[in-house]
């Protein structure tokens, strides 16, 4: 029963995190959504390892070595989660570092301001023959960032 409650809480956190990442346009809120997904996943992993009526797998006065194999909780998911929590902190640190750099570049935290940046890498792809059947981006003024690397080659053909 208790593990079903923890499992449901973890899955709800993952759902909230996915909603946060999709819905918000502020970079920091997207990072928070990612962190929520991580925490929810940790809860799910710990809930799966629960044994009914079990206790922590630490041998001390309350849990003797002889009865440990029948009353202890599965130790492996807990070991995985210990690692995952520290890695989650580290990945969040990298994401926040990138958010700081993006803010210094464009002075805004809205992710919409960076949509145009995806096209800066496009000219290197367009030069290969395989890309001829890819959908071509529009060559109108609105899709070109001032000071960009250049127009994609197909804009010059007509």
């Amino acid at each position, binding site marked *: *029963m208790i*593990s*079903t409650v923890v*499992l*449901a809480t973890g*899955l*709800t956190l*993952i*759902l909230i995190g*996915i*909603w946060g990442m*999709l*819905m918000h346009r502020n970079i920091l809120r997207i990072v928070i959504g990612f962190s929520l997904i991580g925490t929810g996943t940790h809860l799910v992993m710990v809930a799966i*390892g*629960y*044994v*009914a009526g079990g206790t*922590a*797998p*630490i*041998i*001390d006065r309350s849990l003797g*070595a002889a009865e*440990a*194999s*029948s009353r*202890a909780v*599965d*130790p*492996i998911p*807990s*070991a995985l989660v*210990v*690692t995952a*929590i*520290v*890695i989650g*902190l*580290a*990945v969040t*640190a*990298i994401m*926040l*570092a*990138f958010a*700081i*750099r993006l803010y*210094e570049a464009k002075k805004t935290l809205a992710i919409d301001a960076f949509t145009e940046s995806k096209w800066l890498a496009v000219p290197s792809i367009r030069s290969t023959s395989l890309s001829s059947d890819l959908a071509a981006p529009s060559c109108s003024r609105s899709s070109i960032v001032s000071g960009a690397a250049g127009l994609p080659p197909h804009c010059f053909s007509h």
Partner: protein
Amino acid sequence: MIRRAAIVLVLALFGLVFATLTVHHVERHSLPPLGKRYVELVPQELGAANVITGILLTYRAFDTLGEIAVLFMVAAGVGLVLGRREGRRQDLPRAAPQPPRPASEIVRTGAQILVPLIAIFAAYIIVNGHLSAGGGFQGGAVVASSAVLLLLADPRQRLDQQFLSSTESAAGVLFVLVGVAGAIFAGGFLDNRLLPLGQFGSLFSAGAMPMLSVLLGVKVGCELSVIIDRFRS
């Protein structure tokens, strides 16, 4: 409008999958075979009371080594992304940055009292990893939280990054050396039976595990402190 509808559809589908998982979840009544073996083996063979630390530092110690490598890469990555801001500050057209406001007296006094207590608590958690809940990762994270408190209390304070970086590298090298010594003198890489197992439940038991815990705690604590210090200013 269509974007919002697509988001709602995605969330509804995820919710359906998760609800199915929750409804069909059945609690176990006995340990799975691998967990049972670990719970029986760790007190017997390794002499450690905490089964999870025994798994993390001996049976699956290679994963711990890999995670140390990931933490090191992240520390290097944050240093790379945020590192050269002092030199490039003149390029950005913005007003001169104001000096950071000193923290209020409550924060400063509280930090003076709390930082030594947090450091002692972190050392206790690290060293007691094999006896009760704790271990290198948990203690290292608490050390980093004391670094956060220090930086909050005095924004002008700079942590000595050179010292922290060389300490963390030395701890990582020692960790690998203990592992190789385990391969030469005991059963395998990072086997903790390198040192005598001692009396079950005492502080100096479980072979090389307290030493590995200390090295791990020092490394993780220094790494996270360096990462946090990069975000200052």
